[in-house]
């Protein structure tokens, strides 16, 4: 049969009859309920997200600007996703999602997974998905408290994108357990990658849970199971810019040990929420250099190690509402009521102690001239984030965050293009988020 507009109308009429005949069939096609179809214990829904940031920044994050360290403003698409998710016969959940890459101006598959939830004792998943590592790490970036997650999530690797993996999850009325083995995702040009499966684990427990009050305890662990790969320790200081300046503390070659843990604590009483996490990470490896001179081969081995620890404490107040908490996923999410403001404050502290062999000579990834005072000394990053969220409705929200960071052990006596190197960073981010 020739397909033309009449046939399409016919098909539409026929499908409306099917919909009437089978009352299991439901669909929604509006922003409030989403865009999806369900029938026969199965469902498919279209999901999308756009986050647009206007970022004003100066000092460290502006080091690679035309005028180094100068007050600058960028507008960037922070996140753009579109995909489908759903379930087949109640036991086969799935998701496929495309994410916009602003650097390459291209689209990449960042979610492609399927699961099996047909057994009572545990659920099984396979594919490319993000592991819920840490409390703020498990929280969807649509509903994280500030524009960016705490710096500790740059300094740990449990939230890094994976290529593919296998996960097992189970939960009860007041706990959740998640385990995963996964290979990390790398760009095609990356060298010395970790091709081993890393191991992830998370346990959450909720000793107090009522409609108004929650006490969350959690523990996350990740062993990267290194493959003599390179390991980079860096942070963007919660500042995303077009140049994407990073503060690189250390590079470890031939990594032999890389494990990390997070202790999670969260408490919510009605509108008030307090949250704190502490992390610890150890990376060990060696810079191995082999030289042949006059037929004699010599190998020098410089042992490298980095010890990191720190955390944050944050407080927020969601006027006339509270954040939803999911026991099965051990995380907070969207507000229970919308058209409300949420002011917040977060203090962060991170200590990074590389030995001299691991420490980077040039700390900025884009320009030379930012150096450590003592490459054998530790770096301490202290940050304060002050901001407010406005949740208009499920689809539209806004955030303004002011971030001030100070980094110790930066040699400010040096300069780039005659501008003194800065050991601090100031950022103001305004974000508009649209999701469906």
């Amino acid at each position, binding site marked *: 049969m020739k397909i033309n507009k*009449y046939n399409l*109308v016919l098909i539409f009429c026929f499908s409306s*009859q099917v919909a*009437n005949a089978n*009352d299991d069939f439901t669909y929604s096609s509006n922003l409030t309920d989403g865009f999806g179809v369900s029938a026969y*214990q199965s469902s498919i829904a279209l999901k999308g997200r756009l986050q647009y940031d206007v970022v004003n920044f100066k000092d460290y994050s502006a080091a690679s600007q035309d005028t180094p360290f100068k007050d600058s403003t960028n507008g960037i698409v922070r996140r753009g996703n579109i995909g489908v998710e759903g379930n087949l016969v*109640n036991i086969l959940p799935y998701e496929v999602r495309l994410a916009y890459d602003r650097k390459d101006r291209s689209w990449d598959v960042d979610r492609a997974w399927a699961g099996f939830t047909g057994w009572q004792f545990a659920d099984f998943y396979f594919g490319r998905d993000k592991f819920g590592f840490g409390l703020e790490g498990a929280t969807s970036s649509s509903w994280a408290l500030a524009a960016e997650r705490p710096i500790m999530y740059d300094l740990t690797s449990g939230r890094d994108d994976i290529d593919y993996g296998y996960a097992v999850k189970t939960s009860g009325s007041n706990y959740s357990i998640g385990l995963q083995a996964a290979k990390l995702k790398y760009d095609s040009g990356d060298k010395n990658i970790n091709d081993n499966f890393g191991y992830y684990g998370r346990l959450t427990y909720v000793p107090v849970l009522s409609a108004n009050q929650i006490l969350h305890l959690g523990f996350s662990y990740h062993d990267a199971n290194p493959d003599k790969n390179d390991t980079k320790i860096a942070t963007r200081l919660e500042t995303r810019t077009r140049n994407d300046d990073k503060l690189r503390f250390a590079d470890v070659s031939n990594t032999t040990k890389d494990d990390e843990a997070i202790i999670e604590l969260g408490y919510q009483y009605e509108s008030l929420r307090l949250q704190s996490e502490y992390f610890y990470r150890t990376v060990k490896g060696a810079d191995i250099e082999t030289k042949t001179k006059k037929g004699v081969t010599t190998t020098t081995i410089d042992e490298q190690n980095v010890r990191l620890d720190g955390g944050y404490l944050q407080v927020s107040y969601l006027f006339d509402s509270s954040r*939803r908490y999911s026991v099965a996923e051990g995380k907070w999410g969207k507000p229970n009521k919308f058209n409300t403001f949420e002011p917040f404050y977060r203090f962060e502290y991170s200590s990074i102690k590389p030995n001299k062999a691991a420490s980077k000579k040039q700390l900025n990834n884009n320009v030379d001239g930012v150096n450590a005072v003592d490459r054998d000394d530790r770096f301490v990053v202290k940050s304060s984030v002050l901001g407010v969220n406005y949740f208009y409705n499920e689809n539209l929200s806004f955030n303004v965050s002011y971030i001030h960071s100070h980094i110790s052990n930066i040699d400010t006596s040096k300069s780039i293009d005659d501008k003194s190197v800065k050991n601090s960073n100031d950022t103001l981010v305004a974000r508009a988020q649209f999701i469906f």
Partner: protein
Amino acid sequence: MKYLNYVLLSLLSVTAQSWATENVANTPSVIQLKAADLRPTQPSIGDQQVNYKIASYVLSPKKLYADYCEDNGAEGVESFTEKSSLLDLNSFKCLAPYGSKVKDLKTAVIGPDKQYYLTDGHHLVSMLNKVSGGDTPVFIRITDDKSAMGSMKEFWDFLAENNLTWLKDAHFKPVDYQSLPQTVSAESLQNDQYRSIMYFLRDVSYKKPKSTNIPFFEFYIAEWLNKKVPVDSLKLDTREDYYDSLQKVANAMISAPADEVVVELDGKKYTASDFGVFTAINKKELNKLIDQRGKLTVVFSAGQ
């Protein structure tokens, strides 16, 4: 042109179907009553369902007025204030006039004693009684007027023959209509634990088909499940125990063959499939129950 004919025929088919649906139904009679005016046609309700509703209204007063408007055929709430009360219908505004969405209304039959016998909506009326008392207005669709019938026995026979009454207690033992209380409230009606379980398991292990006309749907399915997992074997005192019990019942439910007969009514066998029983538990919906604002958490938080 040939295709155009197909289109017109198809459109005509759809239109005719809609017209028929509208006109087959009896012209309803909608009246405004007070909650105290209604009499039950069943001995029990699920107390936890009523408790959950009330607890959720404390957390979200808007939901109280939204549900009230919807259940009274007025679509939803347009506006309300802190001073609004269900006892004063002018203190809040619904999106549509009361009774205009006839399909959403609860139903009653007028008995020979001129009393209004509720055939659907015992949980709603019990909730209203608890929230704002017996004077709370409620809009009801009268499906039959049997005030001319000779006796109450004849009336109850009519109700039974038309599946408009559920005369079994919380342990699914038959009861006499004369033992029914005179009011529809959580205090006067027995607590049927299984009826509440069926409420919490909606969309978890079954979904009531939209077109079903099986009356007392949840009671029949509860009675069927009680044979598999007796209510007395379930621990239901705490949120954790209740959650475990729900899983136990849900598993029993989905394990049944789709063609297993749940109930036989008027010679017709209704199977698990007819009752919308799933073949697997919807874990996403199950997990929602125990979230911070999940039904189980809310109902067990109430009064803490």
